[in-house]
């Protein structure tokens, strides 16, 4: 397993980035955690529909996303808000989706991040197609896709890996193995020893990485991105990590795992070890972090306000994004709905 920084904050190899970038990414993790907690708490108040927290997976997401160029494609899941945000997806849009507003899926122009996939498995193939298109278009954009340990059981994972191998597409597959797919433990998901080793069956390199180690994630992803950009094909990265929270806000993890297990992983918190490292490098102090946390908190508060202030789509608008040009059927149905609302009023 690739590890550069131990849970105790000790370096096992040269860090792949300088102190400035380390600080920047640490603060990104701090901000992401603020978001995660805010989202969880406003969900409890009924202001979000459901929410899938990523606490514990910040290094896996931010370390990998930091290795991208801003124009690289990203194909994430419902749990990858931190990675999406790193790639330019606004908090507001992330929140809008969770509030039940389709406009969350429409990030600003220039943000090359697809709306998060809710279906498990299918989206990895999209990253194969996106990377392939880049090659055909003479561009060196690559595509990164995120998915969980559970997703590796779906047939589409297999088809995506196989196509990436055959067509040597510039796709980086990031499996956040957070040990559970809802309640199913990793060892019940597949009998292979690691997920990384599945890559061999596709002629694709697979790397097992400590997913709670920002440095290791950044380094492994950077290497995979260079490979992809150079036309040398895809890589599968297994980020060994842990979901500290519930699957979603409707889940009760005590039904399927022990508090002791959670505590073991809490001790490997991805923020802690960077904090220790920075402190050892005299590049951290509490106030600096607190200030940044407050800044992030306020920014996220504003995003919540903005999302909540947005007037919901009007009834007629639910028909307006099905086709470039509305079909007669939809136009008729739109009229029916409006008429029925008039009748009602």
């Amino acid at each position, binding site marked *: 397993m690739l590890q550069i920084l131990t849970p105790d904050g000790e370096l096992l190899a040269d860090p792949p980035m300088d102190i400035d970038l380390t600080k920047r990414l640490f603060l990104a993790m701090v901000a992401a955690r603020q978001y995660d907690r805010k989202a969880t708490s406003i969900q409890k108040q009924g202001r979000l529909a459901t929410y899938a927290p990523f606490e514990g997976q910040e290094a896996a997401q931010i370390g990998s996303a930091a290795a991208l160029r801003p124009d690289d494609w990203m194909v994430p899941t419902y749990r990858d808000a931190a990675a999406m945000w790193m790639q330019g997806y606004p908090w507001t849009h992330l929140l809008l989706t969770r509030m039940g507003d389709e406009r969350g899926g429409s990030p600003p122009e220039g943000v090359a991040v697809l709306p998060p996939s809710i279906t498990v498995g299918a989206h990895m193939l999209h990253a194969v197609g996106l990377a392939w298109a880049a090659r055909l278009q003479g561009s060196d954009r690559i595509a990164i896709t995120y998915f969980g340990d559970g997703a590796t*059981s*779906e*047939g*589409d994972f297999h088809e995506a890996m196989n196509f990436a191998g055959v067509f040597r597409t510039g796709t980086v597959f990031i499996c956040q193995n957070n040990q559970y797919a809802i*309640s*199913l433990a990793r060892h019940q998901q597949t009998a292979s020893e690691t997920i990384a080793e599945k890559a061999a069956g596709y002629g694709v390199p697979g790397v097992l990485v400590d997913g709670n180690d920002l440095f290791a994630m950044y380094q492994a992803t950077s290497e995979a991105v260079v490979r992809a950009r150079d036309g040398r094909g895809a890589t599968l990265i297994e980020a060994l990590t842990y979901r500290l929270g519930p699957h979603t806000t409707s889940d009760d993890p005590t039904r399927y795992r022990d508090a002791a297990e959670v505590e073991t992983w809490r001790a490997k918190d991805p923020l802690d070890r960077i904090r220790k490292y920075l402190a050892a490098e005299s590049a951290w102090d509490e106030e600096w972090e607190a200030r940044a946390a407050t800044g992030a908190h306020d920014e996220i508060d504003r995003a919540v306000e903005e999302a909540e202030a947005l007037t919901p*789509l009007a009834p007629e608008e639910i028909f307006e994004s099905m086709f470039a040009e509305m079909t007669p*059927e939809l136009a008729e*149905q739109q009229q029916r709905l409006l008429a029925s609302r008039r009748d009602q009023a």
Partner: protein
Amino acid sequence: MTVMNLAQAITDALDIALATDPRVLVMGEDVGRTGGVFRLTNGLQATHGAERVVDMPVAESGIVGTAFGLAVAGMRPVVEIQFMGFSYPAYDQIVSHVGRIRHRSRHRFTAPMVIRMPYGGGIGAAEHHSESTEALYAHTPGLKVVVPSTPYDAKGLLLAAIEDPDPVVFLEPIRLYRAVKEDVAGGHFVVPIGRARLERTGNDVTLVAYGSMVRDARRAADALAEEGISVEVIDLRSLVPLDTETLIGSVRKTGRAVVIHEAHRTAGFGAEVVARIQEEALYSLLAPVQRVTGWDTIFPLKRTEEYYLPGVDRILQAARRTLEG
């Protein structure tokens, strides 16, 4: 007799099937330790063991394909798909194999199995979690398609489905899981598949619904009754086979009908109901049969799902339109 809601009635049916038939297995994602995303299999693994109530990896085609093999070998698997929207990866197994083996082998091999799918909207769920694509399964030969709307029917139909010698797609209206309670007989009983239920009798107009929409149809009938309009409400309960007799009998009597479902309009099951009515009862029709349906749009997210779902108002308007016709 116990008072139970639809969710409890399903749990009860599964428990009875597991207890009385050693061939029965319950399998699906998260059905074991955590009792399923809707907790409908809660406690079943503790009672019947992890061999009988099996947590499966995240692979719907795999689950259905494996269950098919189990069924061919003489087991009676009851598969849970977490939400109907996640049944599509298994669609090939269902259409190409589950619904076909009896025909392919001229009765030599069969696949008696049940595929349970929570379906429908109205709970503000995320994308893909509110699907209502029963028409796909109704159009697939070799499958029965059952949709209960009451706790009693849910229990009796599920037991009938598990005992059926052929595969049954069993749709559960999420919105009604915990909406109403009623007295349900304890122990084993079945409600035969293929017979509609007359939810209420009347003479002026027939409302045809199934699953989640039965409640709205009933409410609309209440409202119309207050205006002195006598409404017949049919709960289809089974789409395949369809109880055409009850349907046609009612429309011949009332001369007017409204068909209601939350599925998309175009090529939805409502079209089939309309087609059967006009084939058998055209000359009794006093006005066009109205369809009150979801639209041909993606099912909207929470903030706007009310615009998509047929509600009491749209049913009332349609009923009035037939009464003017």
